Structure formats: structure tokens, C-alpha cells
């Protein structure tokens, strides 16, 4: 009995040590995070410099405004989600002119990993009739960190953002999330920097009009895109999540200059893999680079984003495609006529 009581008290002492160590470690971590995130140099906090997180709250790409708008939007007909190609390509004004309400939840460098958790948070509230999921093939090779930094800088902390941080498997994501969480717990608001640019105009509803035009055609050296297995799994998870909802689903790759497409030497294999995945799930997939679509550089702002003119034309093309698809047309109450633009 004496031995077992000694054993129990030893065990209790060990547990107490672990608890105290963990608690003091957490306190030290929190204090260092707070200190580094408040010390700034040239507008960047020491934490940002140390972790390579250069995302800015309220920058010109509009993530902050986009999600503020989202809080006021109720249900919409079409939800666009994906990368910067999403917010650059789908002009909500064109959809509106054709009687369709829409919201564009695209964000910079958004990868499938990021998309999944954003949909988990917002899909039910938006309850769209159709989700247009845009995939930029190069983001399939990413780790989702850049997009996570942008989202953390512009969204309030949430369980979905925390899950996203864990999913990146990178401690820096956790650092950024912790800094944001501590800031919001201490009542720090999002002091948005009102950055503006002559080349980018945010439109209510999430569309970001690119007002410039591509001038040179130096697209870079060709290379293989190595798809990250985790990102591929998230694509499948997204398709499953969306199929489980009430919404129709359309997966697209938006048009890019041919020079850009050709820099990815295995682009065709990636496109075919996506097509095959969608076909296996009976999901409609359009690759707008498979056949020449908006090839002229006058429709592009840079190497891969449509400019406002190109987005207007492309949005009209999308609407025409929706009209031609019976399931989409029926769901959206579209009549078969050419889209106005």
C-alpha cells in the first residue's frame, strides 16, 4: 500500500510538472507572439518578417471588403469560389444584368485546402443554387500558406480558420492565427490599410476588375507542375462537400494566354485528370483552355488574369454555357438566349 501511494504521488508530481511546463510554455509562446506582432518595421511586424507572412489587412485585392460584403449578402443564385482567377474572371455585374444574383468568394492564391474550409464556413449561409468552382492548376502544387495568410489578415478568427491552419501542417500558420486570435481577444480591430491601385477596382459582390492590359509575352521557363497529394485530396473533398449540398456544381479552369498554359509542360495531363475526376462524380467540367478561348492578349491584365473587358466577355460566355446546360438552366430559371453584355 505504501508502494502504491508513493507511485501515485510520483505520478501526480509528474502530471503536475507536465501541466505547469505546458502552461508556462503556452504563456511564453503567447507573449512572444504578441510582442513580435506589435513590433513593426516598415509597416511589417517582426512576426511577419520572421515567418515570411507578408499579407496585409485590407489590401487592394479586396479580401477584407469581400468578406464584409459576404456578411450582408443573403442567399444568391451563383457562388463563385477559387483563386484570383475567380475574382478576376466572373463579373457579377454581367450576371446581374442577366437576372442572376452572385457572390465571388475567390481570394488570392486560394488552393483547394483553403477552399474546403471556406466552403465549410460559408456555404450553408449563402445556400446558392449553383457553385462555380474555379481551379488554377498551379495552385494544386501549393501548400495553401499564402492564401491562409491573406485570409487570416482579413477575416476574424474562427474554428474553420484554425482547422485550415492545422491542415497546412506549418507552424507559421499557427503563429499567424495565434497572433490574430490574441489581437481580437484584446479588442484589436482590423485597422485596414486603404490601399488603392489604378489597376484594380473592387466591385461589390466580390469581383475585382483588372484595368490594365498585358504588354509583354515573356511567360517564363516551361516546367512540370507537381500536384501536391494533399491538395488533390482536398479537391475530392470539395466535390464531395458540394455534392452533399443542394447546389448544382460546375468546375472550371478559366482562360489564360496560351503562353502561360504552355509554361506548364504537363498542363494537359492535369486538365485531363480533373476532367476524369469530375466525370467519375458526374460533375460538369469546363476547361476554357482546351479550345481557344479569348486568346488575344488584349483581354488579359497580366500573364494569367483576365482584365475587366475579358472578364465581361468571359462572364457572358459562362452564362451562355449555363443556358445550354439543362440542369443549370432549369435550376437558375434561365431561358435559352444569348447573354447580354
Amino acid at each position: 500500500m505504501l508502494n502504491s501511494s508513493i507511485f501515485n504521488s510520483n505520478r501526480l508530481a509528474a502530471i503536475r510538472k507536465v501541466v505547469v511546463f505546458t502552461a508556462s510554455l503556452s504563456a511564453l509562446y503567447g507573449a512572444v507572439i504578441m510582442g513580435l506582432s506589435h513590433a513593426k518595421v516598415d509597416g511589417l511586424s517582426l512576426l511577419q518578417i520572421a515567418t515570411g507572412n507578408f499579407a496585409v489587412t485590407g489590401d487592394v485585392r479586396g479580401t477584407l471588403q469581400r468578406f464584409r460584403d459576404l456578411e450582408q449578402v443573403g442567399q444568391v443564385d451563383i457562388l463563385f469560389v477559387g483563386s484570383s482567377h475567380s475574382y478576376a474572371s466572373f463579373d457579377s455585374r454581367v450576371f446581374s444584368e442577366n437576372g442572376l444574383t452572385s457572390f465571388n468568394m475567390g481570394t488570392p492564391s486560394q488552393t483547394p485546402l483553403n477552399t474546403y474550409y471556406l466552403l465549410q464556413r460559408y456555404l450553408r449561409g449563402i445556400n446558392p443554387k449553383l457553385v462555380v468552382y474555379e481551379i488554377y492548376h498551379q495552385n494544386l502544387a501549393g501548400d495553401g500558406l499564402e492564401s491562409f495568410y491573406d485570409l487570416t489578415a482579413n477575416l476574424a478568427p474562427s474554428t474553420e480558420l484554425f482547422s485550415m491552419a492545422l491542415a497546412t501542417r506549418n507552424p507559421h500558420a499557427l503563429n499567424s492565427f495565434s497572433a490574430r486570435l490574441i489581437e481580437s481577444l484584446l479588442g484589436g480591430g482590423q485597422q485596414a490599410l486603404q490601399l488603392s491601385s489604378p489597376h484594380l477596382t473592387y466591385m461589390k459582390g466580390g469581383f475585382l476588375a483588372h484595368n490594365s492590359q498585358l504588354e509583354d509575352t515573356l511567360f517564363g521557363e516551361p516546367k512540370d507542375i507537381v500536384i501536391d497529394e494533399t491538395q488533390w485530396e482536398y479537391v475530392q473533398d470539395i466535390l464531395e462537400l458540394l455534392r452533399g449540398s443542394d447546389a448544382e456544381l460546375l468546375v472550371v479552369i478559366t482562360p489564360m494566354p496560351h503562353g502561360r498554359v504552355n509554361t506548364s509542360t504537363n498542363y494537359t495531363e492535369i486538365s485531363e485528370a480533373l476532367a476524369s475526376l469530375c466525370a467519375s462524380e458526374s460533375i460538369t467540367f469546363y476547361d476554357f483552355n482546351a479550345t481557344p478561348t479569348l486568346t488575344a492578349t488584349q483581354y488579359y491584365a497580366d500573364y494569367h488574369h483576365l482584365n475587366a473587358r475579358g472578364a465581361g466577355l468571359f462572364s457572358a460566355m459562362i452564362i451562355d454555357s449555363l443556358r445550354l446546360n439543362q440542369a443549370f438552366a432549369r435550376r437558375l430559371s434561365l431561358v435559352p438566349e444569348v447573354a447580354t453584355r
Partner: protein
Amino acid sequence: MLFNSFEFLIFFPLVVAFYFAIPHRFRWIFLLAASYYFYMAWKPEYVLLIMASTLIDYYAALRMGATQQKSKRKKYLILSAVANLGLLFSFKYFNFFSDAAREILASANIFYDTPALDILLPVGISFYTFQTLSYTIDVYRGTRKPERHLGIFALYVSFFPQLVAGPIERSTRLLPQFRQGKTFDIERILSGLRLMLWGFFKKLVIADRLAVYVNQVYNNPGDYSGAPVILATYFFAFQIYCDFSGYSDIAIGAARVMGYDLMENFRRPYFAKSIGEFWKRWHISLSTWFKDYLYIPLGGSRVGKWRWHYNLLIVFLLSGLWHGANWTFLIWGGLHGSYLILSHWTAGARERLCALTGLRASPRFHKFIKVFATFHLTLLAWVFFRANSVSDAFTHLNSMLSLNTNGLAEAFDKPSAAAGWIELGIASGALAALLMAHLIERRQSIGVYLAQQPRWARWAAYQALIVGILIFGVFSHAEFIYFQF
């Protein structure tokens, strides 16, 4: 599987937990399976190479043990050497020698398209082939009896903590440990975890952070000159040290958690007072391998002067080649061999210089000069080790002669100059922590030093390391430098 990966963070605790949960007689099976799984996480089919090497050496050793006839024993030793070195040659050196042959023929105006193999270098092949070769050589010499248990032998070859980047363990040291029962010793486990923590700090905070700067400069020869190139070279000296010794610490710590004692691989090499001493402190498992299995059989220093110099050059050239199939590594090795030869030639002159300058009267300053000179000789050699080609190396050396002091922080490639300087500050702070640890280690081991401190101080040190890794670590899944060997 990399040590600095999420997968290892899951793999290791599970392996340790299961290891201590099962009876000792089953542990070798479990560890063997875990070690193969660890290796297969990289490229599953390449585990067949380890298995092949294991089976050949197991068989060769048994056959050697079955006969006293030297000629027969030699046959099986040759079998082992051909198999292991053949594997190494095929995967690592074939293309290098093929290219060299083509260049030599081209210089004689003979243009022949020499064959090339399009195969990936198996991770760790330089390490495990040398490890098994040391076993068969020891059996041949009669230093040890052949291991009859195939499973235990296979575990010796593939033991995951040291499989892919050493330390290269001698069979006399490691094999017997697999037969000993290991108890759950919390102090030993904590000691192992502390060593792993220090290894992760060196790798993630120091090595990978310095690598950003070094890669930017060394991968763009000619884009930088003067101070940035000099700084990048100093940084590389610490990058490679922290990368490799960090890996060794993690390996030794992981093995210690499970109760296994792996050999020390680094002993504060940049405090060496001579190149000879440097090689007793740097990558100790490899330098002792070359000493015991090549240098001494060649005659070592117990031969005539010129033969001795020849032996030194051969050993260091092969050591350079072991590191990589590139002329830069050969030059690196050749430089170190030359340093040792020159050191012998100039010993008398240096003694006279010391007497003349009165250095003898200032032993501490004299020691500082020796450490300073040795470090800078290794630094010069590191230029070749890191450069992508011989011509790049000379470009970097030439660039260093420039008096330019601008752009020191630019190579960190940050959004602003101030951010670059902050980054430089972080790197410097991490190096200062390393220096502090090494200064403590001159008197006693860090573990003993910390044990003498009050609990709050010990915990503060561990927590500083953990927080430092979480915040200042670079998590781009950068491979350990020695993985490519």
C-alpha cells in the same frame, strides 16, 4: 521521411510507444518494420536495394566465418565490396565518370555519346553501403564474428534513426545493443528528447534560415560581389554544420529515447586548432571509417614521406568523391588533403615564426590564431563544396575580392531593406545561441550544465528552444544537405 516533417512527428511517438509496449523479443521485428516503413515513405521500391545489400553481406560474412582460409575469405569480402560499391557506383558515380570520359574523348577530338543512367540517387546509399562494408571488413579481419540472426543484422543495416545520414555505426558497437533489453527510463528518454530538440533548433532555425541567404548568393554567381558573398560563405560554414550536426543530434537523440547509444559525430569542429584536429571533430563516423578501412591499410603515416602524402591525398580525394559526384567535391577533398601535407611541410617554419613573434608567450592568443586560421582554411574549401560548379566557385572567390559592402541584407530577399536587416539579426541571434552552447560545452556537456541549474532556468532554456523553433524555424521541408549523399 524527413525528420523535419509532420509525418515524423506522428511516426516517432507511435514507434516509441509501441516499442516499449511490446516484449523485448519482438522489438527487433517491430523496429525493422518501422525502419523499412521510414525508408519506403520516400520511395518504396528502393527498399529492395537495402534488402539486397543486407542479404549479400549477411551471406558473405557467414561464408567468411565458416572458413579460416584467407583466400576464400577474401573472395567473399570482394563479393561484398563489389556489391556495395557497385551499387554506389551505379547510382551515384556512373553519370559523372561517363561525362568525364566524354569530355576527355572530346578534348582528343573523339566525339562519343557516352551512356547515361536516368535514375534517382537512393537516399542514404552512401551511408548504409559504408556501414555494411565496415561489417564485412571487420568479419574478414576477424575483429568480430558474423551475425547469424538475419533479422538483427537487417536491423543494423536499416535502423531508421541513422539510416539515411549516419552516424555510420560499427557493427561491434551497434549490433550487440539490439540484443539487450531496453527499459522505459524516463531520464534517458528526456535526455534523448532534449538532444532531438537541440538538433531541430540547429536545423530549422539556424541551418534553414541561413540557407535562404546562401542559396540566393551561391545559386546566382556573379550577381553579388564583396561583402554579401563573403557573408554567404561564412553562413554556409554554419549552415552545413548545423544541418548535418543537427541531423546527427536528432538521430542520436531518437536512438537514445529507445535505449540505443549511437556514436558522437561532431565535436565543435570549428574550435579545432589544426586541420588534422578538424577531422577528428567533423563527421567523426566517416573520418574514422576512412582512417580504419582505407588510410591505415594503405600504410597510414608508417611509410616513407612521399607515400604518406600519397595516402593522405587518396583518402581525402575519395572522401570528397564520397560527398558527391562533382569535381567541386574532389577539389574540396583535395584541398583538405593538401592542407595536411602543407601543414607537415611548414611545421618547422611555423614553429620558428612562433618563436620569433613571441606567440609562445601568449598561449591563448596563439590558440586563437590557430583556431582562426583553421576555420578560414575550411571556409576556403567550403566555397568549392557549396558551389554548383568549379567555374562558379572561382566566380565566387573572385567576387569576394571586391570591396563592395552594399547589399549585405538584400540576399534575404525581403520586401524592404529593414526587413532584410531584421532577418540578418535573427540569423545572428541564432548563431550567438549556438556559440554560447559551444562555449559551455568546452567545460562540460550541456546536459550536465543544465542539470546544475535550477528548474526554472532549465525549463526556460527548453521553452526558449521550442518557441524559437515554432516562430523562427523555416518549415519549407528543406532536405538535410547530407541526404543528397
